[in-house]
Structures are given as C-alpha cells and as structure tokens.
C-alpha cells in the first residue's frame, strides 16, 4: 500500500479522485468469526462474521439496537464476546481490555471526547504512555502525523480553547500516535459543520490510502455513500449482508437495514395560518462565569410552523431552548407567550411548572439522553408519569401513564423486552422514542425539540420527523434544533442561524442553500446575513 502514501504537502486537490484510485487489497486487517454476545436473555450479536480489509473504509450500518456498538466495543476491548473469534492479520487474538486493543493496533474514537481540558494537544496525546516524557519529541511526531494526513491542529493549544472539530482531531491523532492500524469512528460527524465534516473525510481518505483500515458508524446515509468503500449491514444483532458502496445506493442500503422497503422523504406542507406564538425580544443569557451564551437574540416562532435553529454545537441553542422552558437564568430580554386571542405573557421568571401549564412542552434531548427528561432506572409507564403525576390528589394515577406507554410503544415501535424494564436498558434510539412520544402526547402549544433524532437510525428518524410534522399541522409552534443540516433544511419552514450566541441569519426553509447556511453558522461577528425574510 506504500505507493499510495501521499506527499506531506498534498492538500485539497484531487481528493475525490484519490478515493477511487485505491483498491483495497483482499487481505483482512481484522476479521470476526461467529461473534455472539448476550446480555441476559437479549442477544446483542448473534453469530456475526465480518472483516475489514487493509486500506479500506467500511461503514457499519444498522438500526438502533442492531448491535453495531456492541460489536465495536468487543473489538476495542470494552466487552468480551461470549462466543466467536477475532483475527488480526490472520492470527487469532484475545482482546480483554482497551489496552489489549491498542497494543494490537486497534483504536476507537468515541462520540464523546475523552480529553483533559486544561492540557495541551501534545500533553493529551502522550498522556498515559509509558516511558520518559519528552514533549519536544512528541510534538515533532504529532506534526509529522498531521502533515501526513492533513490534520490542522496546533500541538500547543489547550483543549479548552479548541472547537469541537479540533478536539476530534486531537482524539484521532491520539490513537494514530499509538501506532493504530484499525480505527473505529463512532458517529464522527454528529457534531461537525458540513465544512468540517468534509475536511474529516479528506483526512479519512488519506488514512485509508496509507493502508489503514477504518470502520465508521454513522446514521447519515449520504455520508456513507460519499465516504465508504464497502458497507456491512447488521439487523437485530445479525449479519445481514455487505456490498460495495459504488454498486449500491442509499435506497438499497436503507431497505437492507430496515428489512423492508421504506420511503425517504420529508414532506413540508405550507404552514396554515401561522400566528405568532413565542416572541423573543433582546434575550441575553450569561453562563456561570458571566460569559454571554445568548446575546441580544430576537425572533418569533409561529403556530403551525417549524422554526429550525442551525448552529454548531455550543452556539447557544441549548441555552435558548432551556430559557424558553424556564430552566435558564435570564440576564435581560423578554420571552412572550402569545395566546390565541393575542394576549401576551412574559415567561421570563416564571417557574418551569407555570410554563408547562401554559402548554409549552420541552422535549429536550441532551447529549446524555437520560440526563434530562427521563429517569433511567424507572420503567416506561413511570417515565410517562413524569408529566402527569400531579393529576392525583395524594396518590399517583397509574392507569393513564400505563395506557400512554402502551400507545407510545406501539405507535413508535419501541423495542423493549417488556413494560417493566428500566428505560436505561433500552437502546439509545428507543429511549429517544419514549421521550419524544411522551412530549408529543401532551398536545403542546409549543414543542421544543433538540437533537430529537440524535443517534436514531434512519427509519426511526423518519417516524420522528413525521410526528413533528403532525404537531405542526395540529397548530403547534415547533422549534427544532437538529444537527443534520440536510434534514433541518428539508423540515423547517424557516431557519434561524445562530453563531456564538448571536443571530447570524434567518432564511426561509424552501430554497435554502446548505453551503450558505453552513457559512452563516461560522460567520464572524458583526457580519450578519439577513436574507429573504
């Protein structure tokens, strides 16, 4: 594979051509045979056999709960398989810890970065390595890795000064520094802007051309199509099949994943008689250190309309939604709730309970899904009760939540071994369905959703989009924060772009251009783009 190694200076040009030039060799870098993993009665992986070739990008596809993460966790030493064998370069190996995995040249970049904020990039990279500490040498080696694959990172920058993309770069450099040949990336683009994702892809192709094997887990099908050489599909813990990306298309991959034919489009009906529902005026929010998270933001959300909020992570969308729900301390400004007859109430300084009683539902899905909104150790009916437990006089009513739970499980096809299972034991996507299902069940006047489909497979995602659309048709004002820009553009009637806590643009959904929005997401202060509104 050495002939494919790139000169250090080559950047930018001809990358797409490179993608197709490297034909992977037939030799497997890592091969799994008959891997089975059970958790109690649940079979997470059932006799899975697959392999990744040297110099190949393999996309691992599957719905939520299909066992992708479990499988990858076994390769990276977090779990140990009940049955089956793992071969590296044709030799059988036992991987009992992440340390074993690293020494065999397997590295995983997790969705949530594991970096020490107060240390620099170099310090983070060498952290935990045996031998004498020589930062100079390490820095030189890091620069070499960066040049080789086209990373852009300052080795001496502190992690807390970095943006998400830079942090991810450090994570990848960290595993490459340890001489990794097999790299697993778990939803690497979830937090990136389109431009940053594009840059990551270029780096990935270079690694591939350098003879490394990459496994990528992602739910964004167009990315699978763009970046991978081959896809392997899992369904319900079983290996279903594989194909060369070139010979397939998104529809075929999705059908294989779901097990039946699905339609992939989001309909966007024209809003019917939109009326202002939430009016935000000059809202400013400071964080604990007095740094503004939201600065002088004003906008209107209307009934029967989906207002999308675009922005890179940390641009203030989380704080904005929390403020509307009454969970944030507000420095200045107003959040008016407009009733049907036009009377306005300022929600600032109202308690969350008062706001809920106004009909503002917050279906907020934070990074750790169970952190806010659900109680992990409780079962589904008890979680449904979170919204309705106040109905009783002294005792909680248990019948309605149970009924609601059954409806949600059926309507959203939640996969659960039973009603009495704690929700933390469900897979991420199913947890999400439970949360979104409950929030929508209250027929809210305002529906706030953040990352409603984070980590959800394509089929469940479309179920959720559908539900959100139904809320819109029913006259709710929907404020939608999402990380898949393609979907955001397809779903929203209007899109508010935030950048560093300020409004950097407001565009109409139909006809909005992805690149333009992507640029607004990173627009420099002061350069505000007001368009078509």
């Amino acid at each position, binding site marked *: 594979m050495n002939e494919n190694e790139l000169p250090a200076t080559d950047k930018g040009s001809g990358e797409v051509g490179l993608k197709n030039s490297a034909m992977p060799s037939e030799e497997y870098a890592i091969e799994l*045979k*008959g891997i089975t993993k059970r*958790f*109690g*009665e*649940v079979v997470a992986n059932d*006799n899975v*056999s697959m392999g990744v070739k040297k110099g190949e990008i393999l996309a691992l596809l599957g719905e939520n709960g299909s066992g992708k993460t479990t499988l990858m966790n076994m390769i990276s030493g977090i779990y*140990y398989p*009940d*049955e*089956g*064998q793992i071969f590296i370069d044709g*030799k*059988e*190996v*036992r991987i*009992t810890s992440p340390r074993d995995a690293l020494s065999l040249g397997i590295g995983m970049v997790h969705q949530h970065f594991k970096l020490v904020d107060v240390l620099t990039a170099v310090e983070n990279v060498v952290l935990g390595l045996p031998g004498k500490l020589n930062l100079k040498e390490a820095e030189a080696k890091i620069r070499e890795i960066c040049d080789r694959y086209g990373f852009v990172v300052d080795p001496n920058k502190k992690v807390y000064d970095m943006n998400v993309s830079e942090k991810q770069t450090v994570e990848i450099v960290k595993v490459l520094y340890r001489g990794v040949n097999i790299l697993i990336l778990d939803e690497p683009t979830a937090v990136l802007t389109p431009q940053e994702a594009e840059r990551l892809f270029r780096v990935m192709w270079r690694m591939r051309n350098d003879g490394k094997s990459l496994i990528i887990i992602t739910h964004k099908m167009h990315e699978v199509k763009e970046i991978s050489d081959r896809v392997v599909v899992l369904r319900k813990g079983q290996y279903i099949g594989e194909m060369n990306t070139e010979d397939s298309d998104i529809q075929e991959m999705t059908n294989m994943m779901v097990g039946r034919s699905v339609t992939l489009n989001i309909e966007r009906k024209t809003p019917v008689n939109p009326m202002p529902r939430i009016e935000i005026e000059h809202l400013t929010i400071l964080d604990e250190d007095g740094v503004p998270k939201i600065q002088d933001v004003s906008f209107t959300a209307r009934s029967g309309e989906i207002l999308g909020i675009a922005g890179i992570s940390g641009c203030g969308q989380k704080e904005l939604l929390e403020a509307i*729900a009454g*969970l944030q301390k507000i420095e200045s400004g107003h959040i008016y709730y407009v009733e049907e007859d036009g009377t306005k109430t300022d929600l600032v300084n109202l*308690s*969350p*309970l008062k706001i*809920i009683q106004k009909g503002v539902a*917050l279906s*907020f899905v934070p990074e750790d899904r*169970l*952190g*806010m*909104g*659900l*109680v*992990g*150790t*409780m079962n589904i009916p*008890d979680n449904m*009760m*979170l*919204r309705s*437990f*106040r109905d*009783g006089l*002294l*005792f*909680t009513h*248990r019948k309605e939540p149970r009924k609601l739970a059954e409806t949600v499980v059926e309507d959203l096809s939640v996969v659960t*071994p039973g009603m009495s299972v704690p929700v933390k*034991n469900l897979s991420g996507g199913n947890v999400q369905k439970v949360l979104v299902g409950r929030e929508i069940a209250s027929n809210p006047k305002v529906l706030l959703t953040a990352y409603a489909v984070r980590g959800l497979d394509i089929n469940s995602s479309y179920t959720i989009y559908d539900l959100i659309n139904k809320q819109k048709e029913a006259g709710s004002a929907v404020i939608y924060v999402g990380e898949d820009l393609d979907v955001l553009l397809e779903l929203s009637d209007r899109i508010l772009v935030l950048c560093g806590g300020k409004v950097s643009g407001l565009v109409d959904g139909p006809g909005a251009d992805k690149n333009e929005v992507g640029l607004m997401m990173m627009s420099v202060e002061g350069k505000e783009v007001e368009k078509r509104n």
Partner: protein
Amino acid sequence: MKKETKEPLFHIVKRKSMPLKKQWLVRGIAIAAAILVCAIVTVITTKMNPLSVFSAVFTGAFGSTRKVWVTLQDTSILLLISLALTPAFKMKFWNIGGEGQVLMGGLGAAACMIVLGDKIPDPLVVLLMIISSITLGAVWGVIPAIFKAKWNTNETLSTLMMNYIAIQIVAFFTIYWEVPKGSGKIGIINQNTNAGWLFEIGNKYLLTIMIAVLVTVSMFIYLKYTKHGYEIAVVGESEKTARYVGIRPGLVIIRTMLISGALCGLAGLLLVGSVHHTITTTITGGQGFTAVMVSWLAKFNPISMIFASLLIIFLSHGASEISTSCGLNQSFGDIITGIILFFIIGCEFFIEYQIIFSGKKKGGNEA
C-alpha cells in the same frame, strides 16, 4: 488453530435479571455455606461441637417467651430507624445521621419526662413528649438538608457530624439532670410514678412492635404510590429531570429529610418512653449506623427490611448468648456474625453478575 494468546480465565458479565425463585435459591445456598464455614471455624478455633454453638445462638434470640418479645421489640426499633433512613436513601441523600436524630428525639422525650413529669397531667406529658421528640428529630434531619438544598454541601459529612453534636448535647444533659448527683447518669426516670412512660398494650413490648408495623406499611405505600414518593425517586435519579418537569429538588430534599428525621425522633421516643425509660449517650447502640446496612440490604424495600432487621437482631442476640452460655468471649460471636453477613451480602454479587469461565464456551459453531 494455535492458541498463542492466553485466554482469560473468566470474565464477569452483568445479568439482565434473575428469576425470583433462583434469587432465593442463591440466597439459601449462601446461608447454607455460611453455616458450614461457621461450623468449620467453630471446630478449628474452639474445638466445640458447632451444633451446640448454633443452638446457643438460637436460644439467645428465641429461647424463651420473654426473649422472643425482646427480639421482636429490638427488631422493631431497628426496623423503624431503617425505614426512617430509607426515603432519604431513595433520594440519594446519604443520611448517616440516624444516630444523632434518634438521640435528639430521645432527648426531647426525656426532657419532657424529667421537667414536666408529675407536674402536669400525664396524658399531656405524653403528648408533649411525642411532639418534642418528633420535632427535635426532624430539626436534626433538616439542618443538613437545608445546607444541601441551598449550597449543595456534602450531606454525608454534615449528617455524620451532627451525630457528634447530638452526643455532646445528650452528654451535657445527663450531667445536668443526673440522679443521684455525682453519678453521671440519669437512671430510670420517674420510677415511682411512671409519669411519661408510654402506655402498654397487652405487654410492654407490643406498642413498639405495632408502631413499627404501621410505619412499615405506610412507608411502603408512601414510597411506591404517592406523589411524594414519586418525586423522591425522580430527584434521586436526576435532579435535572426533576427540574425539567417542574419539581423543585431543594423542596423535596428538605421535605424528605423532615420525614426521615421525624421518624428517627419517633424511634428515640420509643427507646426512651417505652423501652429504657432513661437516656444515655449510648442508648441507640449504634443502630443509626446498623440501619444504613439494613436499608441497603433490603434494597430500600420496606417489606424486605423486616427480614433484614430481624436477621441482624437475631445474630446480635445470638452472639451475646454464645459469649455467656458457651464461655466464649464476645469476639467469637462477632466472628460468626461477620461470616454470615459476608455470605449474605456477598451472594448479591452472584445475583447481579454472572461469571463465565473460558473453558465452557463455544457452541461449536465456528463459521
């Protein structure tokens, strides 16, 4: 295929859940194993017949009608304190201040008996005892809760330290009220008039037992079926979620610790007004801490707590019987108690987790 790599001897996997029957089978095996080990230890260290030692343990707890009643009464007190701590534990508020809360409750009752006994009508004394002991227990519980709610201080430390303050306050009052002067003890309060002694139902043990039964049932319902119980569970699991649905965590913490402290105060009332009729700094006998273990051992289930506290009291009565009747010292009883608890608590690991040995895997389906 050559196996160059070493296979791990075993790996540990968390179980999804174990059928109830099997759980009890595991616990049964654990108890049998504990008894076996106890027997071996007995033979090795004392050269006595283990059966005679075991029968001594049993005699200690259930040897006579009086012993049965005392065992039940002591179980009730321990159960009551465990139940008092449980709502706090469910909220993940680690109240290890049961000792101090019970002591303050006892002090409240004793104070009423000493200061007001024989001066005002007896029913009024009892009423004031109930009010003051429950109030003092609640106050002792709520102080750390307020600090936790307002400034997020660590409740483990503050409840623990409140214990020592309570002990010192009680020590002060035992000297202040000492009878006779110079003895450093209060002795039996109102021994002649029995003023402020809680009334008896049938015999002097039954009142305590009935209150414990009543509180057990109420606590079970409170935690499982009421709005308060639900709020406690939500706050314990995730304060963020609680805030998100409009529950005020600070309020729930304070309210729950009022209940927790009040129930500890009630236990103190029974200890002073019904069981001992006196107060000393050691009247609780460390049960404020033992109750922590009982509550955990029962996995915060009030019904299981009955059995857990009975087990602990049975063992401790048995242990003291061994030391007297078999001529062995108290340490031997502690060894036996230790072995049995080790097995009973240890077997929970096997209920939660599964150990898979490498030898017996692979179903022969190598692709």
